[in-house]
């Protein structure tokens, strides 16, 4: 009974922590520009992260190897280093985007300058991480992120044409370059590698072993699928802007539908939910950068070791947070930073995905827990898809002038 409860809590935390600023930006814009026509891409991306996360979690639980251990073992030092550099740069952009998003929301809730809030947000994150153990950090952001459920309530309240919504789940190709750019963007925002790398190291922080495999499967599959519903709700509420003509690339407008449906309470729930989602993502992406560096080089790592036993890991985390802060303070629009972080994430994705896929299928490492037929098929199908998107991403970014059309 306790086991079920624990698993349920894990799923809830996964749901609450599923969205980040990439989803908020891309999904609401996708809805505004293309109505429900990109819902299929959201589902595809959600299923993708479930597949990737389940494999990473399984590898971590069975072999105690997190992602960048696998990458160094499989790609060797040279190619592994390429993966590390690419991952670190993308992670830095992502942390910057999340910090920027946090600052924007704080600006909407309170009264001070944007730069001030960037610093406040960074300091706030350091305080939270310093005070809470790993599990506590995940639960705090995960449970409070559940406020995002107000977006599902809003979508239901607005009573969209469900027939049209259903149509959106069937892949269609409008053929416009901007549409294709958003296919990549929406998919990539759902399948951000930092989230999976964090999940893999988190499995070891939480002490997962072979007995945790069911929990891993349920977290990844059920938790992320429910998260996908939230992601779809963003698309639906994004469309509801279309007639109003408001530019949803301004983060504040993302919360407006909730206000329209439920007044002040709705607005506060939406903004609060966004704050915890984005805050959690800032922690996950910055931790991811440190995990990757420490694991690749063989340093001691982990929140569970504490700053005294893992000093280099901890120091690198602070440095990454600081560098990300500098990026936001440089004045680039956080929404633009978000778009770059999402697009470059998918470009770097094949390099970190393939070694995991190979080790997940390697019986000499995984024993009886190696990929079965379904996992192998899904794993390779997604790899092919990821490669196609990785190749198309930058050309589409340039062709659409960063989604500007």
């Amino acid at each position, binding site marked *: 009974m306790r086991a079920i409860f624990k698993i349920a809590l894990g799923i809830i935390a996964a749901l609450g922590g599923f969205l980040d600023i990439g989803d908020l930006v891309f999904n609401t814009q996708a809805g505004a520009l293309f109505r429900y026509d990109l819902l299929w891409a959201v589902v595809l991306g959600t299923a993708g992260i479930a597949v990737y996360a389940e494999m990473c979690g399984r590898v971590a639980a069975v*072999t105690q190897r997190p992602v960048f251990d696998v990458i160094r073992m499989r790609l*060797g*030092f040279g190619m592994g280093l390429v993966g590390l550099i690419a991952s670190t740069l993308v992670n830095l952009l992502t942390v910057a985007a999340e910090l920027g998003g946090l600052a924007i929301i704080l600006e909407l809730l309170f009264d001070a300058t944007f730069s001030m809030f960037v610093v406040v947000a960074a300091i706030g994150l350091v305080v939270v991480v310093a005070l809470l153990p790993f599990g506590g950090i995940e639960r705090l952001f995960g449970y409070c992120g559940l406020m995002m459920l107000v977006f599902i309530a809003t979508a239901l309240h607005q009573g969209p044409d469900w027939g049209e919504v259903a149509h959106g789940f069937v892949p269609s190709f409008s053929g416009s370059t901007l549409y294709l750019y958003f296919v990549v963007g929406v998919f990539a925002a759902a399948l951000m590698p930092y989230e999976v790398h964090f999940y893999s190291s988190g499995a070891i922080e939480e002490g997962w072993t072979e007995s945790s495999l069911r929990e891993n499967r349920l977290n990844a599959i059920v938790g992320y699928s429910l998260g996908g519903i939230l992601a779809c709700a963003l698309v639906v509420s994004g469309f509801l802007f279309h007639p109003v003509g408001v530019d949803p690339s301004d983060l504040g407008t993302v919360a407006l539908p909730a206000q329209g449906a439920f007044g002040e309470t709705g607005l506060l729930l939406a903004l609060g939910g966004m704050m915890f989602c984005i805050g959690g993502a800032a922690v996950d992406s910055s931790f991811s950068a440190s995990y990757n560096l420490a694991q690749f080089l*063989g*340093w001691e790592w982990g929140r569970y070791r504490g*700053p*005294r036993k893992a*000093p280099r890991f901890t120091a690198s985390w602070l440095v990454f947070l600081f560098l990300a802060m500098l990026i936001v303070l440089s004045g680039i629009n956080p929404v633009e930073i978000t778009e770059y972080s999402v697009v470059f994430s998918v470009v770097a994705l094949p390099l970190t995905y393939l070694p995991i896929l190979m080790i997940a299928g390697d019986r000499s490492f995984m024993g009886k827990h190696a990929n079965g037929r379904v996992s192998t098929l899904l794993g390779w199908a997604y790899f092919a898809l990821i490669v196609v998107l990785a190749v198309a991403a930058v050309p589409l970014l340039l062709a659409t002038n960063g989604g500007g059309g």
Partner: protein
Amino acid sequence: MRSGEPIFIAHRLLDEQILDSEGRRCGRVDDIELRGTPPRITALLVGVALYPRRLPRRLRGLARRLAGPERWGANAMRVPWEEVDEVDTAVHLRGKAEELGLGNGDHPENWMVKRLPWN
């Protein structure tokens, strides 16, 4: 690890995580020392100074300038093979990291570690 059992060096030993007798992570197998004919593994080599060896020839010059020369006992450590207890999902050592000069970067007595704000 039974007698006669095969092991593929690049696949299972090179680049593997090293854990000391207390389970502390203290570096990775950056290179391996061999002696004799047929070659026998005599030591594991660990350290930043070994990275240039692992890169393609063209990048070695730049990498060497960044990593510095190989200073054995400082940025390159030799771990005699007798110190290895077991190799499974990591390389497990018989002794403690500090006795072997490994994991210095995380050691509390390290001058940089002492200067960190929480120490």
